């Protein structure tokens, strides 16, 4: 038995998992209840909370991390993990940013997104092809991509101000909504369609739930794994671009430690690191929970470091009941 199989066998011990089982849906509802409760509390504490301007602030703050978390959720459902997203985001933005002097938005945006896909492909090949545990493969990729980004940019920031459509991605509005928020919404809908209503979605949950069974039922497990890493790489590059565009500033040492925040959102959304479990809606609700908590604490003037502690407490509070119900070890 290989090491990988061992983990899966031990972790998903009582075996079969259906996509979004009944209990997970209950869990999803309780998360929405928590979100509503938080919103209510926030409105009571700070009367301006539900003002459109403040809601827009919350959604803008959530957009980039939400986009990354959607990619991460797909990877986690497949039973893998991607620690490289910060590196991928930066390298993609830097390689795209190097083409700013060409003045071509298609080239800059295209190369950014393509780099994300390619780095995701490499992650996927390392994991599915060379059978390197994803934690190690993507940890290595994080270091490599970050290093390449700094080498390629000479450690200097790049300024995409001259590329109109690029900046529009971060600052523009469409249909009365900020573009990053719109992109998050569109991506959410697409990802829900992919996970719930497509054959790929079934293969995804099957792969994460029980690799052996998935393989025996004819699912190309390697292809599923490579696909989720490519999608995650794409999301990372896109999120990186949204943030760089909003700031008009591509920072080769940005996004430090974002992988852990994104993982926290994903887990808060109900995805299990052992695979086979998790929903896009859950992740989105989790991102909003974090966004609301941060916004409320900001309005109350709580230091961002104490907010970090509060976020940790929130994660624990949401995860604990689930963990206690589950009962089995590891």
């Amino acid at each position: 038995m290989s090491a990988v199989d061992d983990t899966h066998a031990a972790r998903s011990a009582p075996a079969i998992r259906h996509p979004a089982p009944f209990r997970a849906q209950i869990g999803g509802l309780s998360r929405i209840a928590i979100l509503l409760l938080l919103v209510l509390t926030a409105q009571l504490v700070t009367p301006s909370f539900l003002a459109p301007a403040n809601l827009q602030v919350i959604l803008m703050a959530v957009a980039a991390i939400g986009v990354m978390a959607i990619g991460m959720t797909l990877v986690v459902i497949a039973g893998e993990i991607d620690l490289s997203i910060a590196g991928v985001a930066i390298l993609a933005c830097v390689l795209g940013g190097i083409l700013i002097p060409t003045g071509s938005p298609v080239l800059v945006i295209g190369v950014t997104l393509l780099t994300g896909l390619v780095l995701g492909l490499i992650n996927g090949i390392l994991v599915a092809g060379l059978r390197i545990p994803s934690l190690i493969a993507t940890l290595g990729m994080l270091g490599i991509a970050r290093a390449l980004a700094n080498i390629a940019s000479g450690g200097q920031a790049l300024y995409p101000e001259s590329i109109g459509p690029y900046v529009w991605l971060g600052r523009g509005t469409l249909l009365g909504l900020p573009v990053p928020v719109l992109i998050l919404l569109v991506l959410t809908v697409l990802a829900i369609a992919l996970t719930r209503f497509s054959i790929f979605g079934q293969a995804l949950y099957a792969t994460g739930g029980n690799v052996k069974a998935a393989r025996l039922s004819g699912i190309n497990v390697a292809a599923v794994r490579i696909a989720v890493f490519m999608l995650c790489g794409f999301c990372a590059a896109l999120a990186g671009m949204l943030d760089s565009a909003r700031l008009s500033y591509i920072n080769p040492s940005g996004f430090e430690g974002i992988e852990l925040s994104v993982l926290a959102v994903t887990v808060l959304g109900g995805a299990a690191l052992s695979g086979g479990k998790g929903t896009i809606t859950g992740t989105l609700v989790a991102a909003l929970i974090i966004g609301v908590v941060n916004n409320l604490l900001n309005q109350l003037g709580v230091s961002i470091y104490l907010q970090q502690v509060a976020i940790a407490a929130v994660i624990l509070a949401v995860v604990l009941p689930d963990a206690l119900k589950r009962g089995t070890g590891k």
Partner: protein
Amino acid sequence: MSDATLKSSSASFPSLVTLLRAEPLLWLIAAIIVTGAVTSEYYLTGQNIENLLRSVSVFGLLALGMTVVMLTGRIDLSVAATMIFSIVVGVKVMVLLGDGLGLRWLVKGNTYAGPSLPFLAIAIVTGCAVGAVNGIGIAYFRIAPFIMTLVSLTALRGFNYVLTDGHPYYLRSPVFAFIGDQVVLGIPFSTLVFLAVLVALILFVNGTVAGSRFYAIGGSERAALYAGIRTERFVVLAYMISGFCAALAGILFTARLKSVDAPLASGYELTAIAIAVIGGTALSGGVGSPWRTLLGSLVFASGLNLLAIWGIGTWYQNLIVGTVLIAAVALSRIGRPRASS
């Protein structure tokens, strides 16, 4: 899988010949050192070896704690945050104690000038306590290890900033100077501390029945449970060992710097995991040993040191470290029989 593993890991003091045959990492370390000696006149100077040994000690301690946790099939992402947190708590508690006694132990310029030994004891106890909280959350409250220790990492980093107000504390006393700078018989004192912990862990993990429980839990948790092992207690113990190692690493690290600052050591948890994995510890548990983790940390530290001596820039160093990490694991998997996964 477990049979071969248990056998190879329990033989912790083999003879030199079998050692060289069994441990490819020793060849790698030798190759790095020879390359270093040939290509740079500074590589084998006393000063450089001292630097190398000091960096082995800090990273090695973190990786040793991580190894024990990984043996049980779990992970500890909180080690770097714990490392700084235990020192910060040490300073804070001592200053409060001093206030209570009517003494001012925090003198001008945020310098801690109180007694050192109680301070060190508080730091160690804090590290063990953080480990205990992690372990209890994971073993008894069934929180996934990755999540529990991620929560600790986030919370402790936050506390580090809150407790220090974002200012560094300076640590000045003969004890810190001794721990950080003293060289005993050509070996830095911090390395002696690391070696003492290493030997203790080898004796405990590979030489006692209790220690072998870690392998049993990592090999098959259910089998261990059915065999009557109180797996929860050993999981808590593993995390407490990791917390202890982290606090000790924090002491060595800050004693060298003579200061402690909230953002220090960020990302060291990933380095510790990398070292343990280079040393052959499996993420899935049951495989690995403190002795091999020592080899892993030697490879890591001597390799990085060589790159630095060659004048290779930090980013190229990171590039090489990432590549080597992936390559090392890929190679180690090629050697094994291809399984169904």
